[in-house]
Each structure stands twice: as structure tokens, then as C-alpha cells.
């Protein structure tokens, strides 16, 4: 509970500091809106031209898109310390100060960054979810809401876990590694569409290594009453937990890597 209070307090302070440069903040937030709006427009144009994608209707595609952008940008909003700032913390030596304080390093890193500009991206995602839900004619009940929340929360843990790979790399090589973007941002681009449209190697990658298919596509397709691969109902509740598994595994790896941390000295 103490950690939670600490987190909300630091995020609150960071928010205030972001809002100091009002015009720049508004400009950047608008830029984010254009970006995510552009991505959304692409999906709409695709649906307009192709109508359906391997049995998924336009409404289904908007729903998948909305799930992905809400989970991804919520992660960026609250976990900016990992998703964006960490390599810089290593490079500038800010990480050193974290090591001597009486709190976990990961907690402090997470407390150290937020990205409120993403709020417009999340808004676009929510709009896509509502649109997708209407068009696919989803009849909501309590269980479905629970699965939706579970799926988004677990996807967020998964995305955090994947960004931690980059963090671990940056502990060893100081410079941030561009290649890891393939699995994080690449995962976002690929998995905003249902997994079963891709050839086997890509499917395997996003089911086993970066299990977006398990945290996102299995529950989302169950919510739309079109279970992925015809899997039974209980899978929609169980498979998203793989997000937590990835996160716990990466947390352990992160702490192992920290033992090898050598300060840049600056």
C-alpha cells in the first residue's frame, strides 16, 4: 500500500511538471491524437476497401484495434519509466541514485516517468472499442466485462515485460537497442489485427515469445462470441495470465541484470 501511495504521489508531481509548459503540452497531445487517429483511419480505409479479413468483420477489427491501443498506451502512460526513460537513466547515471534508496529499483523507475500526452491515443482506442462493440453486436454481461478488464490489465503487464527486455539490454550495452523495437512496437502493429491471419512463424512468435495472442486475441474473440481456433470458454479466462508470467519472468531477469550494472560514472 505504501508503494502504491508513493507511486500516485510521484505521478501526480510529474503530471504537474508536464503541465507547466501548457502550449507545448497541448501541441504534443494533439500530435498524438493525429498519430493514433491516422492509425485508426488506416483500419477504417482497409475495412472500407476489403470489407472483411479472414472471417472477421469490420466491427471485429475495430474491437481488436481498440483493445491493443488502450492496453499499449495505458502502459506508456503509467509505465513511461520503463517504456521510454530507462536507457537514459542508465546513460546519465541517474540509476545510481536509485540503488542507494530504501525502495525497490523497479518501483523507483516506474515512479520516475509518466507520459500524459498518450491520453488522446487512449481516447481513440476507447472510441474504437465502442464502435467495434456496436458493429459486432456484443451483448455485454458481467463475465465479459471481467474478461475485458483482465485482458487489458494482462496485456499491459506483457507490454511492460517486453519493454524490460530493452531495459536489460541497455544495462549491458549502455546504448539502447533498436532491434528490440521489432517485438514491442512491431508487436503492437502486428497484433492490432487478429493473430490467425498471419503465417505460422509470426503466429508462433506472438503466441509463445510475446504472447499477445494469449493476452489479447483469445479473450477478445471470446467476448465477440467468435472463439479463436474454436477454443473452449475457460481459455478466455486462463490464457491472459501469460502476461503476468512474462512480467514476473522479466522482473527476475531485470534484478539479475542489475547485479551486473556498472555505472557510466557520469
Amino acid at each position, binding site marked *: 500500500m505504501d508503494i502504491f501511495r508513493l507511486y500516485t504521489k510521484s505521478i501526480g508531481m510529474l503530471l504537474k511538471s508536464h503541465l507547466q*509548459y501548457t502550449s507545448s503540452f497541448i501541441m504534443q497531445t494533439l*500530435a498524438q491524437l493525429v498519430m493514433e487517429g491516422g492509425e485508426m483511419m488506416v483500419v477504417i*480505409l482497409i475495412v472500407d476497401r476489403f470489407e472483411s479479413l479472414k472471417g472477421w468483420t469490420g466491427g471485429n477489427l475495430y474491437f481488436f484495434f481498440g483493445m491493443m491501443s488502450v492496453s499499449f498506451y495505458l502502459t506508456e502512460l503509467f509505465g513511461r519509466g520503463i517504456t521510454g526513460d530507462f536507457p537514459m537513466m542508465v546513460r546519465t547515471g541517474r540509476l545510481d541514485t536509485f540503488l542507494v534508496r530504501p525502495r525497490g529499483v523497479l518501483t523507483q523507475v516506474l515512479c520516475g516517468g509518466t507520459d500524459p500526452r498518450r491520453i488522446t491515443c487512449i481516447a481513440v482506442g476507447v472510441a474504437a472499442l465502442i464502435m467495434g462493440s456496436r458493429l459486432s453486436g456484443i451483448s455485454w454481461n458481467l463475465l465479459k466485462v471481467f474478461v475485458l478488464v483482465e485482458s487489458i490489465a494482462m496485456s499491459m503487464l506483457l507490454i511492460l515485460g517486453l519493454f524490460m527486455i530493452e531495459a536489460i539490454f541497455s544495462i549491458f550495452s549502455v546504448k539502447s537497442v533498436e532491434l528490440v523495437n521489432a517485438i514491442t512496437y512491431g508487436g503492437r502493429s502486428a497484433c492490432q489485427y487478429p493473430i490467425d491471419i*498471419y503465417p505460422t512463424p509470426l503466429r508462433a512468435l506472438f503466441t509463445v515469445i510475446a504472447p499477445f495472442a494469449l493476452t489479447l486475441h483469445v479473450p477478445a474473440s471470446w467476448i465477440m462470441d467468435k472463439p479463436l481456433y474454436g477454443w473452449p470458454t475457460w481459455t478466455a479466462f486462463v490464457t491472459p495470465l501469460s502476461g503476468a508470467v512474462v512480467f514476473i519472468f522479466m522482473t527476475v531477469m531485470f534484478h539479475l541484470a542489475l547485479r551486473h550494472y556498472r555505472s557510466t560514472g557520469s
Partner: protein
Amino acid sequence: MRAYLSVFKMRLRMELQYRGAMIGGILCQMFFGLILVALYRALYAGKPQSVPIESVATYVWLQQAFFRMMVASDSELLDKIRSGDISYDLCRPVNMYGFYYARVMAQKLMGSVMRAVPMLIMAFLLPKGWGITLPSSFSGFLACIPALALGLFCMCALENITVAFTMRTLDPRGMQGLLNLLMMTLSGNLLPLNLFPASWQKVITFFPYAQLLDAPIRLYTGEYIPADAFRVYVLQAFWVVVLISLGAAMWNANRKRMIVQGG
């Protein structure tokens, strides 16, 4: 002119140094290309379009290969604007706009050619329908090269306009972000422009963003026949002139009201 040429050459050599970043960039771009081609193949399986899938795949690969041309920017210049060191550049006996135009052009040219050559070779090796196809005709291929060069000129002029906004606001993220994102959508990087609705295409293909890569790619795939090439060049050259004069005017106006952050 010689001064600009030597700046250009120096910058070319400089860009050649970053080989490690290059390999990471290539692999990342290849991965994105594969995902996009897989997506369009799945879409085509449901409802084939008038544009054949091979030419959509070619479009995707050429866009990915020359991606660096769009994103490379002169971070040193942005630092100088923030720190006020740009005042030293006012003392140089060359035109500031031309100086930085040559620099960013070298960066974009070398950065994209270094990545494009290995990427296109790999894309040629992919199976048919996944990889890039040969150009529609030899004359189409020849017509594509001057169009690419004009596209590069256009791109650098756009980049300098973005920098002109940064000179005013000092913070590069707002306006630059906005302009870059417009570019990603309207240049065909997110979705090939030939898959946009036909009525939109009439307008979009006239925009400067379509001159960067879309026009050369369409010459390559044969969607614009080589006889059209002249018309394409005129439109591209028109935008190059407009964008360079606009950018140079903005830089000159900024020079008069430049504020150096003390310290």
C-alpha cells in the same frame, strides 16, 4: 557552391560510420515489412483488388527500404537551436539554409541508400508475392531514378520547414511531431496510397508528401507509365521550388528575430 558540396561530402562520410545502428535498423524494418505484407496478403485472400498483390508488396518494401529518408534529421542542429549555439552559424560566410540543406541531404541520402541496398536484396530473395518484384519495364526503372532524386530534394525542403518551426518554438516535439505524422499517413508509409479510396487519391497524389516516395514507386511498378514520367517530374519540381522558397523565407525571417538563450 563548392562550400555546400564539401559539407555534403563530409556528412556522407560521417553517416557511413554508424554501421551498428544500420544493421539493427535494417532488421527492424524488414520485420515491419514482413508483417505488412502478411496483412495485405490476408486481405487480398478475401477480396482481390485491381492493384495486384505483387505490386502492393513491392510498394511496401520500397517504402520500408527508404524509410530512413523520411525520419533522418539533424539532431545536432536541433541541439544548437535549443542551446543558442546556432548564433555561431550566423558568422559563417555561407547561406545558413543552404548549409543545413546540404547536411541533411547527405544524411538522408547515405542513411537510406546504405539501408535500402541490403534490404532490397533480401526482399528480392523472398518468394513471389512476398518479396519485391522487378520493375515493370527497364524504362520504368530508369524513370524512377530521377523521381527518387526529386523526392529527396522535396524531403529535405520539408525537413527544413519543420526546423524553421522549431526555431520559433525551441521545442522540437510539438510541431515536428505533428508534421511527421501527417507525412507518415500521406506519404503512403502506413497504407499504400494506391489503396486509399479513388476519390481521395486524386487530391492526395497532388500533395508534396506523395512526391517523396509514392510517385517514384508508382513509376517503378508501372502504375504510372514511363510516358507519364515528365508530368510527374514537373509536379515534383514544382513542389521542390515552392518548398525551398517557403523554407528559405521562413529561415530568413527567423534569422532576424533569433533569440539566443544566454549562458
